[in-house]
């Protein structure tokens, strides 16, 4: 049988579509391709709501169980896992209406907003690490920002995922420190071109080639960001004296103004007394 290009393309498409016969879901459309499978929008006919349905290329039921264990506000909740009639595994999860981080950042957002997103991602990562899970493929395409500013980290990894070059640690074996590298790459990604050197230093430290030179965990990285936001010195950067003085001035502006006012009054009184 000789197949034309158009028929071949059609067959490749339809044979890849999940057959949802016998499930409570009705297929709507493809919405994305992740590390190990394709994500579709589907309708849950029983509960009359839209869900995201991920079909795994291979029988990776473990991926769903891994994510289901991670109950956190910044991790997409899993609703159900199952097997398709053709043997592929699938799971359904909350359908996040929003934008991928790379698309989200195309809009103009303040530094504070960018750091807020990073902190949510870091919190999810820190939580997952305490549960013994690692992401393995953290990148902007795997972070969603919802319509109300909620942040979700998607596509929690499985062994077969090798990561994405620009965000993947150069480590031979991926572990929690590899995720810290990816989080640093994400910090670098969200920072605007004219970002403060302290923040750039945080990204650089997290992305050290030597895993032991990185932050020991996501919480330590977040703490450094928090220090920056509070006007304190960050662990990642030994700042020059002039920068330290300027930061001290900015942080203690009110006190300095009061001291200046006090000195001015004293000087005025001294001047008046000696008239």
């Amino acid at each position, binding site marked *: 049988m000789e197949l034309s290009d158009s028929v*071949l393309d059609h067959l490749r498409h*339809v044979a890849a579509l999940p057959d949802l016969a016998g499930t409570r879901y009705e297929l709507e459309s493809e919405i994305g391709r992740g590390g190990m499978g394709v994500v579709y929008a589907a309708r849950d006919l029983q509960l009359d709501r839209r869900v995201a349905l991920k079909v795994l290329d*291979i029988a990776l039921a473990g991926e769903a169980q891994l994510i289901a264990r991670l109950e956190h506000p910044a991790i997409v909740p899993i609703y159900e896992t199952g097997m398709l009639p053709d043997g592929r595994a699938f799971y359904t999860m909350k359908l996040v209406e929003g934008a991928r981080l790379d698309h989200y950042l195309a809009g103009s957002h303040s530094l504070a907003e960018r750091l807020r997103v990073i902190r949510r991602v870091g919190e999810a990562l820190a939580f997952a690490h305490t549960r013994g899970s690692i992401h393995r493929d953290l990148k902007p395409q795997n972070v969603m920002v919802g319509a109300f500013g909620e942040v979700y980290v998607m596509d929690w990894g499985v062994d077969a995922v090798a990561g994405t070059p620009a965000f993947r640690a150069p480590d031979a074996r991926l572990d929690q420190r590899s995720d810290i590298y990816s989080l640093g790459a994400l910090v670098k990604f969200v920072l605007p071109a004219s970002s403060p050197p302290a923040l750039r230093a945080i990204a650089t430290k997290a992305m050290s080639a030597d895993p032991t030179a990185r932050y020991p965990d996501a919480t330590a990285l977040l703490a450094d960001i928090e220090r920056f936001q509070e006007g304190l010195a960050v662990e990642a950067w030994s700042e020059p004296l002039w920068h330290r003085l300027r930061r001290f001035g900015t942080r203690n502006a009110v006190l300095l103004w009061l001291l200046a006012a006090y000195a001015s009054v004293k000087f005025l009184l001294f001047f008046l007394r000696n008239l």
Partner: protein
Amino acid sequence: MDFDTSIGGPHGHFPSTQLSLVEAASAGVPNEAIDRVIALYWKPVYRFIRLKFHKDNEDAKDLTQGFFTAAIQREFFARFDPGKASFRTYLRMAVERFAANEHAAAHRQKRGGDVEFEPVEEQAIAAESPEQAFEREWQRQLFALALDDLRAHCEGCGKQLEFRIFEAYDLAESDRPSYAALAVLHGIAETSVTNHLAWARRTLRGFVTERLRGVTAGERELREEMRRLWN
């Protein structure tokens, strides 16, 4: 067991009937593996040689035949190391070396044997490279073989109606009929058209998987090939 559902196997998996290349070699049935390889790869190899070395139809056929003959004689398949590359890549590179040597030999004979062979350059301006054409032809042949399997399966288990609906809809070159039109034509409900199509596609996918299993070295390579195929 209801055959409608038995295709999914007891645990929802398509039953495996083909040994992988490595399994076939270790089980002492290499000829079976070679037959499968030739069935799937003859056309992609032929097309690759035509484009890469600018051969006419007859020369490309001869070279293709020559490659598979040499491959069998020199135990080419037994030397495949799944740790180094996929079988498809291994085979394409071997074809390239073989055809380049043959091409060079022919070239030397024509020039009196005193001229060094210069590799033929890639087609400068072409819709697709020889490598892309090889890949495309491989996909085409894979689906063509799986479709033959599906047709035979349908005929063997009284599913001719399912195949006719699948053929009318999914194999249509243009202007696919509506589900409603197919329902009227075959005197069945529209939902039955949906179900028959879903069954045929699912079964086709199973046969594609089986064909792939027969020409890959194991589960890992099979998974990678499946991912490439559907993406």
